[in-house]
């Protein structure tokens, strides 16, 4: 008697529905985590007081967030979210260990100066909130690019804030003295809050202006297109009318 063999269904390779759309650039501007949504700001406000610190924070944030988000994307969704966050936090703190050891070798003093804001990056909202509301709803490739864009968005603002504050506080950039003008007290937390607040407002104003201008341009293009189509249609109708008129005229 022939043994009934179970036939395994062949794995069908699914085509990815990936398309490079504009929303992939959200992390850079529209949903920038520091200036637009403000969900990750403690390290920028308190610790990013110089260009060098800004760079170190950006590197640490990039490594920890990227590795944690990518690893945790394999955590089964069957586990309830209230418990899944524990895994995210633990994975983040595991990745923190090599990251800080590596950074300490390259920037020993800066890492020490950043202090508690370095380990606090394991609880950043990009890992806890954005994963569930955005990243894990996308395909793997799209998620990869999206995460990188969000990290770039944070890093650019972090380095910029650090540079601005160094210039305001010490009149220097990356340790090079530029001017004698300085407000050392701006290194305190209030300086960070006020600067980030003003940067956020200015960035939003600029973003809104550009968006409105783009909408206006699109409307103008659409209006011109509609006008052109209407004109074409009128010409077509006129030609048809003339063609209809011509034989009758010939008969007469």
């Amino acid at each position, binding site marked *: 008697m022939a043994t009934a063999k179970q036939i395994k269904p062949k794995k069908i390779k699914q085509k990815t529905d990936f398309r490079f759309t504009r929303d992939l650039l959200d992390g850079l501007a529209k949903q920038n985590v520091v200036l637009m949504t403000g969900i990750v*700001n403690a390290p920028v406000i308190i610790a990013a007081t110089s260009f060098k610190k800004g760079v170190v924070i950006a590197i640490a944030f990039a490594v920890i967030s990227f590795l944690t988000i990518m690893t945790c994307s394999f955590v089964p969704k069957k586990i309830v979210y209230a418990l899944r966050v524990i895994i995210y936090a633990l994975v983040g703190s595991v990745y923190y260990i090599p990251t800080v050891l590596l950074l300490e070798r390259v920037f020993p003093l800066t890492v020490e100066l950043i202090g508690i804001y370095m380990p606090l990056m394991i609880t950043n909202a990009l890992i*806890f909130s954005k994963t569930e509301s955005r990243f894990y709803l996308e395909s793997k490739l799209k998620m990869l690019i999206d995460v990188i864009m969000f990290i770039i968005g944070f890093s650019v603002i972090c380095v910029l804030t650090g540079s601005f504050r160094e210039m305001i506080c010490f009149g220097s950039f990356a340790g090079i003295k530029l001017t004698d003008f300085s407000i050392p007290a701006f290194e305190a*937390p209030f300086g960070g809050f006020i600067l980030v607040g*003003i940067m956020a407002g200015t960035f939003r104003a600029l973003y809104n202006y550009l968006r409105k201008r783009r909408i206006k341009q699109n409307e103008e293009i659409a209006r011109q297109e509609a006008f052109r189509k209407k004109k074409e249609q009128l010409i077509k109708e006129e030609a048809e009318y003339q063609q209809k008129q011509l034989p009758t005229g010939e008969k007469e």
Partner: protein
Amino acid sequence: MDKFLLFINTAMLTMFVENAIFSRALGTSVAFYASRKKESIIGLGLGITYVTVLSSFVTFWFDAWLYDFEYYYVIMPLIYTLIAAVIYTASLLVIWRFLPRLFRSIKKYVHLSVFNATVLGALFLNTVYHTDLLQYIAFGIGICAGFFVAVFFLHIANDRLNSPLIPEAFRGMPIMMVFVGIMSLAFYALTGYNTGAIV
């Protein structure tokens, strides 16, 4: 009596000098979120206080045990996260078992009061500044009281900061940041610092 006074003193100093939001920016985004509703302030405030105080109590013993280990500062986040996770899971299980209605209403947001910068920040600062158990707990309470006070201030200012008088681009988070900055400056002065402008 001395110990009690020291306890109160530590808690008060933490509340004003080491204020979670105005001096340390710990959990700013959670504070902005909580400041929108009165219920959120109370709920999140209580949740953060509960986890911070319990975690401070547990971390004290771990700190005493592992402080001399050369790489303790590297594994510290992992240990603290584990401690917070155990407290969080145990508390969730108790709530789920005995208060199912409460569990249903908090399960979506309860993680915000555990895995946030306020809780972990308080634990890290505790390790840096304090040496005995009472101060650990007082610091935990002080940080949470400071968070509560800051969120309450934000809640009061919330309506005005979102009014049409504020330019559209600054409405919401940006003006909130500037407001916190000014409050932070006030707290800075309250604790005896000056900006160097007045000699």
